[in-house]
């Protein structure tokens, strides 16, 4: 399972109950719904990403990546 970021389509008033249910039906374990910015986080197998992308209210399906900054003793941060 990988952490997945679903971006909902633009210019729509998302019915988040329906959106969440349809994503779960397609195999996503929803972990977080960010309603102000139209993002849904979840976990799934990589092979399932295409299924999510095909849903009508989905703009993109991306894998969550990590970010990092330099250690505290670095002169450049």
């Amino acid at each position, binding site marked *: 399972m990988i*952490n997945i*970021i679903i*971006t909902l389509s*633009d210019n729509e008033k998302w019915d988040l109950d329906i959106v969440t249910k349809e994503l779960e039906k397609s195999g996503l374990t929803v*972990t*977080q719904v*960010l*309603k*102000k*910015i*139209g*993002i849904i*986080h979840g976990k799934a197998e990589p092979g399932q990403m295409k299924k999510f992308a095909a849903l009508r209210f989905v*703009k*993109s399906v*991306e894998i*969550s*990546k*990590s*970010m*990092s*900054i*330099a*250690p*505290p003793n*670095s*002169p*450049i*941060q």
Partner: protein
Amino acid sequence: MSTKSKEEKILPKRFIVTFREGSLKKGMASVNNFMGVKMSNMMSSADFDDNAINMAEVSRSGGVVFNHLGIGVFSADEDQARKLMAGMAENQHIMAIEPEGTRYALGADVSEEYLRGFRDASDALYEYSRKYGCEKQMSLLSESYKDTNALTWGLQATLAAKSKFSGKGIQLAVLDTGLDGKHPDFTGRNITGKNFIGGTTTQDGHGHGTHCVGTSCGSKNPAEGPRYGVAYDAEIFVGKVLSDEGSGQDTGILAGIEWAVASKCPIISMSLGSESETTTIAYESVGQRALDAGSLIVAAAGNNANRSSSYYGYVGCPANSKSVLSVGALDCRLGMGDFSSRDTILAAGTAVDIAAPGVDIYSSWPMRDKYNTISGTSMAAPHVAGIAALWAESTGARGASLWQILIANAKTLSHPFADVGRGLVQAP
């Protein structure tokens, strides 16, 4: 005497009056009062098809009002203009009155004397560049700042130290490693915190977050040393999206943005990024949705350049999003930070939008060190975020309007646009 100069003598001069926002009607009454211009002589853009004013049809004794622009052009003799100028100083409805200028197409009627002067100046600059090199020339022409007992160089260069605004009433979110809750410089401040990495505290065990909060929102009167914070009265929202080891996930950062937008923070400062030449649809979309909701995301361009070795890097994610304001780093002579990323990708959104102090930046650090001087575009972004709070306070602007104000008021630098965008951020 030519026909043109005859006309100039005969025609009354015209003046352009700029009215304050929403003051067109009252401002017009003032014009009427001071200049004796009759409203019946005035024309408005609504009198013309498609609001396209034909100046030839405008009465020479009156003038015309551009309703959508909030300006008027009035014919006035010297006495009338003098009266209006005198009355303007105390008039709250009029922003400015200026004589109408004449513009000429570039290249037309250029005198030999002008061209000779232009040639001589160009030759002198060319020789100077050959002798000293362009970089040297830029550095000689630029200003120089240093930390004093009272102020860091960054607050001086950005004019934040002279601003009468403090960020009062503005919520500023810093998504980073947290804030040291024991630091004396933040005692008594209005601080709201939230952890997005699976813990419960926003305590900073790294230092990066405390430094960034310090630059953007630090005290006007710190416990010791110079003042280093810009928006000293702003409400601080601390989102811990990076661990004490300095790492975090996109999911935690996006959750932090959601929290800041829902908390109606006009500014979200993010001194973080990944080494990715392209952005994600998620960050691009979220940046735009935040702007639409009145929240401006400010992000560090990145530290992946090594300019002294002729490597200029690229702007990292999420600063390389069209909807995120990307910040490059300057040193105290307004030269580029050696590490500051350049837009070498040259795609939509990958630009550096603005620059700010980011080399040898003194700010708060977790106790017991209390203070630390470090460098990075991470230090430049909070300067811009704090100054955005000052503009948000002074103008009421939010979202894309606030972005535009920051860009429009930046100070032009001699560096390529790909390094510093529009220039050095300036406080109101």
